[in-house]
Structures are given as structure tokens and as C-alpha cells.
């Protein structure tokens, strides 16, 4: 056998010309709060900047909601719940949701562009993943609005009242859809707080609610940072809190809600194991691992951030991953050929960089794509660690960036114990060509969502949620309805 090393050359032959998305978008200079069906200035008159992470420059000024604004928003939601939305025949509520879904489809392109500008995700993903799923969620839950008693036979499902919803910055519109669609279908009204760094598309969604003729107060959107979210969570007149975000904040919310009659669902962090057996279909497994960790720059709570490879194929698999990350294109989120966009914020980039540093200090070996990254803005090259052990911080803590931690296992039992050796339990992946093995392993994994021979597949009909510190409650599917009904 030839012992010489042979290399593929991924160079400049047939290099792709820039292919920026150029559709004009209605970006505003300043965004207000959306309360009682109208855009209103915050009572304090204070605003903060939303930054384009690909340039580091300001995109727009965003209204900062404080306690008095939250009071108004909750009051308007309460009024809408009691006077309009609650008493409305369910089939009528469904019609509004269908209308909203259709308008989202019509405006999908401009929303996708705004999402990429504000959040840094590649246009390929916002266009082909986020926006289609946003519309699909509204369509799906629109269909449930007048069929709730069939979803829960023998019960008399009733709405909870006013839902306070706090969402993260990684899938701004999609998380808004996950929260708003089931809440409204079940007859609740909503006060939504988008993440501080990604409020813009939520405000465009508010315009869609206006266009759809949604009665004032049914959905209110209050932008702001942590204090705004806390004010909403702690508000006495909110019946339900739904939060997606970090485990640390989730714990604080659980503490503040404890002892109140508020219902709570939490969708928090993850450190998913992607388990690759030696009988996997190797090239497809490589693609799945790439998608699992580098999709949306790794800003995914269910990202497959721990790769467990069977020892016998470790070297081959790592070599394939190394070659593959060389062909990932990092850069302008609005370029249609970009695979990996900008890190959402300076703060997040700092956290990723710090954790990567600990990985190196603790003895893991860092492998990084040799790609060039832009000088301005926030970027991180697609990377992975080999030689990781379960005690390394990069194996235990959620990095929430394009950084994968690779460990090995010898037997299926060891794979399961490594996979479950975490405080999280949101998702997992299994890669084997053997059907029976998929079921036996899936049975033993403590994770809310398990993908087999694929990863990061989402569908509104499928429930999503975690075990342990990844939270509780389910979003999506019939199960997602019960979080908004009593």
C-alpha cells in the first residue's frame, strides 16, 4: 500500500463570484414598541442599537421597554383576551392565523434578508429553513384552532389567559412563531419580548399582524434586554411564561415563577451527542455532523456539539471532517454561497473564544479551517477539538458557536454512557446503517429529540423539548398545544 499522504487541493479554480442578495428591504431607522395594535414610543424615551454582526455597524435604533411599558402591554393583552380573542369562535381565530401565515409567505424574501442582516445567519438558511418553517408553524397551528377538543378528547381545553414569552436571538422569527402560533390558536393573548440583538424582524412580524387585521392587543411586542424580560416574567397579571434561551436565565425565571400560579415552559441549552458507529454510512455521517454543528454558526440549542466516534473509525472520520471544513464558505451572510455567517454579537464571540481557549489549555487539540474571515464584524472559523475528555469544559458547557468537541468510544454501552454524561438532554444523533441498533440506542438516550442518520430536522408537527437542564414542556405538535391550555 502507498504510504505517502495525498491531498486534495481546494483552491481558486472556478472560484465563485460574489452573489449577494440584492432585493431591497424596508429597513427602518428606528423601531418602536408594538402595544395594543399600534407602534408606540417607549415611555422613558430610551432606545438601544441593533448591530449588523457582519459589519459591527448599527442597523437601527430599537425602543427599550421598561416596567411602565410592560404594564401597558400586559393590560392590553388582558383586555384583548377578555373582550375579543377569548370569546371569539375558535374557527375565526384560525382564520387570522391562516391569514398571517399567508402574508409571511408573501413577504418571506424580505423577512429572510432582514433576519440575515440583523442576526448574521447565511441567507441560504434564513431563506430555505427559517422562513418556510415560520409560515409552516402558523399554518399548522391555524388548523388546530377549532379542533382543540379533538386534540384532548374527554377534556374541555381552555386557554390560560395572557402569555409572556421571551425568545432568543438564534432563530428570531422562528422562535416568535413557535411561541405565538400555538398560544393564539389556543385562545391566549401574548406579550412577546424578542432578544436584545435581534428585534427587527419581530417588529416586521408586528406589521404583518396589523396587515392581517389581528385585533389590537392580541399580540404585543416589547423590545429590550434582560430587565425588560424580567419585568415581563415578574408581572402579576401574566398567566403563563414561555422562555427559550440559556439555562442560567431559565433557572432565574423558574425561581421567580415558583410560588405563583403562573404556568411555565422552558426550552434551554444543550450539549447534544452525535454518536457515529463504525457501521455508519460514512460520507453521509460527515455531512450530518457538519450540519449538526455548523448550521447557523452553531447558534443552535440542539446543535450536535459533542461528537462521539467509534474508535475504529476515528482517524478516518476526523480526516474527512478536516477536508470538509475546508470547503465551508465563511463570510457575508447575504451572499447566496455563504455556508457560515457572522457570530451574532461581540459578547457571544467573546464567550466562544474564551471557551476555545480553555479547550486548548485543558489539553484538547484544536483543528480549524484555513479560510479567511472578514476584518470587520464578528466571525469564528469552523473548528473542532480532538482528544477531548468528558471533564473538559468544551465537553460540558454549551459553546453555542461553530466548535465541535470530539471524543471516542469502544462499545455501544460506552457510547450511551458518554452521551448521557451531561447536565443537558435536548437532542442527540445516531449514525448507523443498522435499524435495530438505532432503536436500541435511542431507547437508552436521555434526550428530548433524537435524530437517526440525519440531524437538525424540524417540523411543526413534531414536539421539541428537553430533559434535565435543557428544560421542560414541549413545543410543536399536539404536545405543543397543552402548554397553552388548562
Amino acid at each position, binding site marked *: 500500500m*502507498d504510504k505517502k499522504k495525498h491531498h486534495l487541493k481546494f483552491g481558486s479554480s*472556478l472560484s465563485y463570484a460574489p452573489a449577494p442578495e440584492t432585493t431591497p428591504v424596508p429597513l427602518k431607522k428606528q423601531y418602536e414598541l408594538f402595544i395594543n395594535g399600534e407602534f408606540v414610543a417607549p415611555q422613558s424615551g430610551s432606545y438601544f442599537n441593533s448591530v449588523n454582526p457582519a459589519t459591527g455597524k448599527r442597523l437601527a435604533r430599537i425602543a427599550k421597554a421598561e416596567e411602565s411599558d410592560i404594564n401597558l402591554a400586559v393590560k392590553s393583552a388582558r383586555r384583548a383576551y377578555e373582550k375579543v380573542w377569548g370569546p371569539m369562535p375558535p374557527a375565526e381565530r384560525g382564520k387570522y392565523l391562516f391569514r398571517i401565515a399567508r402574508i409571511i409567505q408573501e413577504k418571506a424574501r424580505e423577512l429572510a434578508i432582514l433576519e440575515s442582516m440583523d442576526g448574521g445567519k447565511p441567507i441560504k438558511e434564513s431563506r430555505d429553513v427559517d422562513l418556510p418553517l415560520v409560515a409552516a408553524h402558523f399554518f399548522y397551528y391555524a388548523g388546530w384552532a377549532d379542533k382543540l377538543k379533538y386534540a384532548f378528547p374527554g377534556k374541555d381545553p381552555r386557554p390560560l389567559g395572557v402569555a409572556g414569552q421571551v425568545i432568543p436571538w438564534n432563530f428570531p422569527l422562528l422562535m416568535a412563531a413557535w411561541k405565538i402560533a400555538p398560544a393564539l390558536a389556543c385562545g391566549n393573548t401574548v406579550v412577546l419580548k424578542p432578544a436584545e440583538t435581534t428585534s427587527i424582524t419581530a417588529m416586521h412580524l408586528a406589521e404583518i399582524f396589523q396587515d392581517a387585521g389581528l385585533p389590537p392587543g392580541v399580540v404585543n411586542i416589547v423590545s429590550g434586554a434582560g430587565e425588560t424580560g424580567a419585568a415581563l416574567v415578574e408581572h402579576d397579571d401574566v398567566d403563563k411564561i414561555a422562555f427559550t434561551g440559556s439555562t442560567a436565565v431559565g433557572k432565574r425565571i423558574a425561581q421567580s415563577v415558583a410560588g405563583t400560579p403562573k404556568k411555565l415552559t422552558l426550552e434551554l441549552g444543550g450539549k447534544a451527542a452525535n454518536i457515529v458507529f463504525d457501521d455508519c454510512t460514512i*460520507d453521509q455521517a460527515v455531512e450530518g455532523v457538519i450540519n449538526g454543528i455548523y448550521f447557523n454558526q452553531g447558534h443552535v440549542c440542539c446543535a450536535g456539539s459533542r461528537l462521539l466516534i467509534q474508535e475504529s473509525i476515528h482517524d478516518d472520520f476526523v480526516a474527512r471532517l478536516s477536508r470538509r471544513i475546508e470547503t465551508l464558505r465563511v463570510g457575508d451572510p447575504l451572499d447566496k454561497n455563504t455556508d457560515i455567517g457572522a457570530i451574532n454579537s461581540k459578547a457571544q464571540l467573546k464567550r466562544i473564544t474564551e471557551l476555545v481557549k480553555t479547550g486548548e489549555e485543558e489539553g484538547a487539540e484544536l483543528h480549524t479551517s484555513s479560510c479567511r474571515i472578514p476584518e470587520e464584524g464578528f466571525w469564528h472559523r469552523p473548528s473542532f477539538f480532538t482528544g477531548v475528555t468528558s471533564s473538559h469544559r468544551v465537553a460540558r458547557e454549551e459553546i453555542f458557536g461553530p466548535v465541535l468537541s470530539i471524543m471516542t468510544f469502544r462499545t455501544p454501552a460506552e457510547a450511551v454512557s458518554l452521551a448521557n454524561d451531561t447536565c443537558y438532554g435536548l437532542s442527540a444523533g445516531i449514525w448507523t446503517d443498522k435499524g435495530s441498533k438505532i432503536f436500541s440506542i435511542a431507547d437508552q438516550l436521555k434526550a428530548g429529540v433524537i435524530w437517526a442518520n440525519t440531524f437538525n430536522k424540524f417540523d411543526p408537527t413534531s414536539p421539541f423539548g428537553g430533559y434535565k437542564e435543557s428544560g421542560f414542556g414541549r413545543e410543536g405538535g399536539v404536545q405543543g398545544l397543552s402548554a397553552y391550555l388548562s
Partner: protein
Amino acid sequence: MSFVLNYPVPRIDQVGLEERAASFKKRSIKNEAKAVGLKMAVSMMDLTTLEGADTKGKVSRLCRKARQPMAKRYDCPPCGAVCVYPNQVAHAVEELDGSSIPVASVATGFPSGQYPLKLRLADVKDAVQSGAQEIDMVISRGNFLEGRLAEVSDEISAVKEACGKAHLKVIFETGELQTYDNVRLVSQLAIEAGGDFIKTSTGKVSPAATLPVTLVMLETVRDHFLKTGKRIGVKPAGGIRTAKEALQFLVMVKETLGDDWLTPDLFRFGASSLLGDVELQLAKLIDGNYQSADYFSKS
């Protein structure tokens, strides 16, 4: 006795493979990249005529077209080869005299391959003697599907020997092998048996050259190169009719095998009607707007 290959043949997951292949369609190839890609595609084109009705006149026209595929203003390179039936080889060689364009000939009882080995080898030798520099052989799909892999392998080796100095392209007729696992297996088998190129289809069976089938072949070639350093060529043939599809194949080659394979020595298109659309697209790049397809030659 069971047949053993020197290198492993990994299994393929259909869903994952097709998803990956479809991802190459999302690449946006515009402006100068598009012009470079289209001209590259022409230089890789085996301009083909494989009909019972082929005449000297038709072959002559094809050869002239291969020398100068389109008007001078496009500054387009000549085609990669001219591909004809054995009976037309001598005439094509004569027509291409003075150019560096090789004549490729289908052989081994093309397209079915259902002839005795003796006749199939004679077919190859005859084509080579007439001046063919490339031989496109078809494997016995019957033998392959019956599991008689050793016979398929021996046949390829025998044909390779009969080729002498001529390059051997091994056609699988992937539309008849059906599964991606079969395509991966036959690709490795053909490479180990001595094929210089592996080729999807005869163009007589549908489906012919699809992106996922070609991806399986590219990945086999990649893995073989990384293990042995040997560079094998790939030729999707049949069903590629638009410039856009041709670019998608090139994107897939670029991102799977890298720069070294973006050359007519290692990648070819078997196509008879692709050229017209490529010309139309090049005209658009120069003139700024699309013209009626009626302004471009179709044959």
C-alpha cells in the same frame, strides 16, 4: 469463491446522499465565474452522436463543431473529444486531423453489453485500430446484478488490455443498477480493474447522469486517490441538457475533489445537446440580455 476488493466499499444512505447532492444546486454561479465555468464545461464535453442513422456527413459536422464549438467572439475552447460508434471512428479521426481533439468510441457491444466477451474485445480492438484514443466500454449489468463480480472485473481488465494505449472509460448504466450501494461497489471495482475513467450511462437508459449518482462516483474516486495517489476521471453522460445543470456538476466536482479534477483530463460531460444552451448563456453574459433560442444552433 467470493470476490474481494483491495479497498473498502462504504455503504450509502440514500436520503443523506441526495440531500448533499441537492445542496450543490444552491450555489449561485454568476458573471465571470459563470463564463469561466461554461467554457470549462465546453472543454470537457465529449460531443457525441450515437445513432443508427449516423452518417459520414453527420460525423463531419460534429467534428467541425468540436474544433470550433461556437462563434469566435465567445473565445471558447474546443471540445474535449468526439464520441462515435466504431464504424465512424476512422472518418472522425480523419476529420479531426491536425487538432488535439481525441476520438472516443463506444465499444463492447454498446449499449447493452449483451454479447460474448470474444466479440466485445474484438469490438474494442477494432475501434483502437481505427484510431480511437478513448474507449467507452459498457459493463455486463447482467453479470453484476447476478453477483458475478469477478467476471465483471475480469472483463474490464481484458478490455483495458485490448485498449493498449487508449484510455478506458467504464460505463455502468447506473439507471439499470438502481441503488447507490451498487454504484459505489461497481465504481470501486472498475477502478481496481483498471478503468481510467468511470462513466454513468450510455445515454440510452433513463435516468442517466444524476447529481447523486455522480457524487457517489466522485467520492469513490476521492477515497481512492487519498489512499493510492491515483487520479481517476469521471464522466456523467446522458440527460445533461442545460448550462445550469453543467455548472452544478462542476460545483460538485470542485467541492468534492478540488481543483485538480477541473480539467478535461479528469472530468468529462457526455452530451449531445448541451452546447446550444451554453452558447445562449455565454451570449447573455456578453450582450447583457437573453436572445431567442432560435438564434443558436441545436445540432
